């Protein structure tokens, strides 16, 4: 059970991130999570949105290069040690985390959400589920 993350190439120039978010906003695409990774020369923006099809169409029309990457949306108990518990499960299952970032939040006050990009998605899903940790799917994201 994975989410479709949209990864967008951004030229390292003032205003490019804003140009992208403007294009999405003007076309009614709602962003649920966003993370920016950059080198001194270029950047990659990672997005979780409500409607992947609409978002990729908007990006293509606006001339942004992008790709889709499967990631995991993990519900983390909003209590001390919550994130640590998730990482421990992944560590024990020998799943390598490439990167992770926070979700912009949802209606559920008892949980936080985080996005994980892991090398072995199936192993991660199995290990987390076995420990009673919930993963969210694309439909749930749209409804959050």
């Amino acid at each position: 059970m994975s989410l479709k993350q949209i990864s967008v190439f951004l030229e390292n120039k003032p205003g490019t991130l804003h140009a992208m978010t403007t294009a999405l906003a003007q076309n009614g695409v709602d962003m649920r999570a966003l993370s920016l990774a950059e080198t001194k020369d270029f950047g990659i923006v990672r997005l979780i949105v409500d409607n992947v099809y609409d978002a990729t169409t908007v990006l293509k029309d606006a001339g942004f290069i992008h790709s889709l990457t499967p990631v995991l949306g993990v519900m983390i108990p909003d209590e001390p040690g919550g994130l640590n518990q998730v990482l421990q499960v992944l560590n024990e299952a020998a799943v390598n985390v490439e990167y992770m970032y926070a979700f912009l939040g949802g209606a559920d006050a008892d949980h936080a959400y985080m996005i994980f990009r892991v090398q072995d998605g199936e192993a991660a899903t199995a290990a987390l589920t076995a420990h009673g940790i919930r993963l969210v799917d694309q439909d749930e994201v749209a409804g959050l």
Partner: protein
Amino acid sequence: MERYYQPEIECASREQILAWQNERLVKQVQHVWDNVPYYRKKMEAKGLTPADIKGVDDLHKLPFLSKADLREAYPYGLVGMPLKDCVRIQSTSGTTGKRVVAFYTQHDIDLWEDCCARAIVAAGGTNEDVCQVSYGYGLFTGGPGLNGGSHKVGCLTIPTSSGNTERQIMFIRDLNATILCCTPSYAAYIGETMRDMGLTPDQIPLKAGIFGAEAWSEEMRQDIQNTLGIKAYDIYGLTELSGPGVSFECSAQSGMHINEDHFIAEIIDPDTGEVLPEGSQGELVFTSITKEAFPLLRYRTRDICSLSREKCPCGRTHVKMVKPKGRTDDMLIIRGVNVFPSQIETVLLNYGYPANYQIIVDRVKSTDTLDVHVEMTPEMFTDNLGEVSRRQDELVDGLRSMLGLAAKVTLVAPKSIVRSEGKAVRVIDRRKI
């Protein structure tokens, strides 16, 4: 089967070609002596009279003409016919200083169009073909030259001129154009636009392209051939000598046959002016032996290339010149190293990047910097930052081994480098020297 426009000339024996050259050179030197005082003075300064030039073997005795001479003699100083006998001028934008203005009699235009017709037939053109000329029309020689050649072959000619790419594509598709003539960078752009429209090569009626007026690499040829599903032929020329058609590629696609019945080619050492032995690389020099209105003798082109007399499988006997690496004008000197934009293009295409690029040269604290802007493509993009950086580094290494010089690579957004409809602007030199 190979077809020729003028088989008796294009496949003539070496002896015949040499006989034409000897006879026409002697006549041309007399014509210039009688009608072009600017050049006569140059001959006199070397103690020469027309009697000293008995044939091609004496060519090396004649003084050179250079772009500087054209500037000095502007506009009429090198004209060899009374203006009442001239019917046209063509002109090229000098990258430095004054424009070049070349003159033509009707006879000159006729011979020039023959040369272009030879190129079209060598690319497989017949009177069954529909030839779209997307070179600029007007002062630039590309449009008028190929237009005239296309008429001579009897192709249905579509004179779209350059620009308005959607209209170009509409005509190619609606009128089933089979031959496209334009600059290679514009051909690449037309191909890219068609691909973005979702057209595959088999949906494009074109079968051949004749592309010239700028230096382009072998890799760019492959790229254009693949996107448009055509065979792409090179054509070479200079406004000073007539325009496109001084030389052209045949089915062998390995060098351009020089129309030796109109032009005598030499390769010289650009520093000493000495004629180099056959096969050497050096500066290309042309002597125009049939032009009446603008008869240039030993004109230095500043193009660096070599000549080959190896037998060509196409059956043509005229000498071939290899694709010039670039004009000495296009050559950049960066930290003392000679760099041709076409070398950078080769590296980009080898690593899977598009041939659309821009080279930015600057000087920071008295050191030259070379920054190559390359457009990111969907194929080259991945979510993995390290992987994108690795590909960028790979390109930096590739450039270093090709140029012997460290270059910076900047990945830019797709379509952010301005597309050209004529000659591409490849180099931005910000150095203030």
